[in-house]
């Protein structure tokens, strides 16, 4: 079973188009989107329509959640006054641009998707969330303590947890069992298609693969591949600069941070 997962497109249509073209070559069995279709660029409607027309199963990101509800709060945990001021422009522009039909679509997106696989004698439970299982806007970074990350996975009953939101991809394998009977769980941040923050301005998505013998007893039986793809960053950055969005967001695209 080969599953493609992508997230955090953030209204970046050139990046999304390049993602679709790149994803084609993998012959995946399924594709899921982990939310944040909108925000920070000028193409919220086009991005939504591209995802909807392909019938891609999608969950709500925090930005989608806010825009879907006509909110002026995207739940983005900005730290400085400048970040907050920039963020306010982005959400205001997104609210202006988005049409009613697409807003309703965002409003009706599910929060999580859970897939339970019965491969052998045990269930392998795959949970797809945007931020974390407990909050749509909780940031799960790679350096989170093992104690905390295991607690989150066990609490959500997830053997494989996939999430986005931070725009910084990683894959960690944790053991909630012991040496006699291990229980390997996977925490997978799938990165961002349209607004990377890992200092690489290419988009990122992830391919999750497992076989009929995949199990929680074998940490290698579930594999994750991160794919980086080039896209026309300049077109996306210039679109930001020519709109009323802050130029800082254009620099973020050029720098990948």
């Amino acid at each position: 079973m080969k599953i493609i997962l992508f997230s955090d497109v953030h209204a970046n249509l050139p990046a999304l188009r390049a993602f679709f073209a790149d994803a084609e070559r993998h012959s995946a069995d399924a594709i899921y989107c982990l939310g944040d279709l909108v925000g920070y660029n000028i193409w919220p409607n086009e991005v939504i329509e591209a995802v909807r027309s392909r019938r891609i199963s999608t969950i709500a990101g925090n930005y989608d959640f806010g825009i879907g509800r006509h909110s002026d709060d995207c739940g983005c945990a900005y730290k400085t006054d400048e970040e907050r001021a920039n963020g306010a422009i982005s959400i205001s522009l997104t609210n202006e641009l988005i049409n009613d039909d697409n807003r309703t679509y965002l409003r009706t997106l599910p929060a999580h998707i859970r897939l339970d696989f019965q491969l052998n004698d045990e269930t392998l439970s795959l949970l797809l969330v945007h931020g974390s299982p407990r909050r749509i806007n909780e940031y799960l970074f790679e350096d989170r303590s093992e104690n905390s990350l295991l607690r989150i996975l066990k609490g959500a009953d997830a053997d494989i947890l996939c999430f986005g939101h931070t725009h910084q991809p990683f894959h960690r394998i944790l053991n909630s069992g012991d040496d006699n009977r291990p229980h390997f769980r996977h925490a997978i941040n799938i990165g961002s298609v349209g607004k990377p923050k890992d200092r690489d301005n290419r988009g990122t998505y992830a391919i999750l693969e497992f076989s009929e013998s995949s199990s929680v007893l074998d940490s290698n039986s579930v594999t994750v591949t991160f794919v980086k793809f080039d896209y026309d960053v300049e077109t996306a950055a210039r679109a930001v600069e020519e709109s009323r969005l802050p130029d800082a967001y254009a620099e973020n695209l050029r720098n990948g941070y």
Partner: protein
Amino acid sequence: MATDQLYFSPEHTWIRLEGDSATVGISSFAQDELGEIVYVELPRVGETFQRDEVFGSLESLKTISDLFMPLAGEVTGVNQQLADEPTLVNEQPFTVGWLIKFRPDKPEGLHELLTAEAYNRLTKDQEN
């Protein structure tokens, strides 16, 4: 509650002593810095800690922050409400958002901590 009945540690916990029982929470400054708290990790009743030892942690949307024991002692109570409502720490850090109760080994150590006034000066300096 009037904060002038409280003592503060530089690690942003407050402590209120009543007889031989002390209650501990985090300051308004600390909860504001942390942002929305998502999970509170607390010790079990009966556990003992040295002064400045980590007795638990607070997980917010963006970070995890350790909690440091203001005085050495044995934990006699933990705020069970925080399991379901961790944001009580943000909303009412000095009252229903309390974290633990404990019996200090040396209650007189309280006077080595900061008064509310001294703590407020410290946090103003940190902000600047």
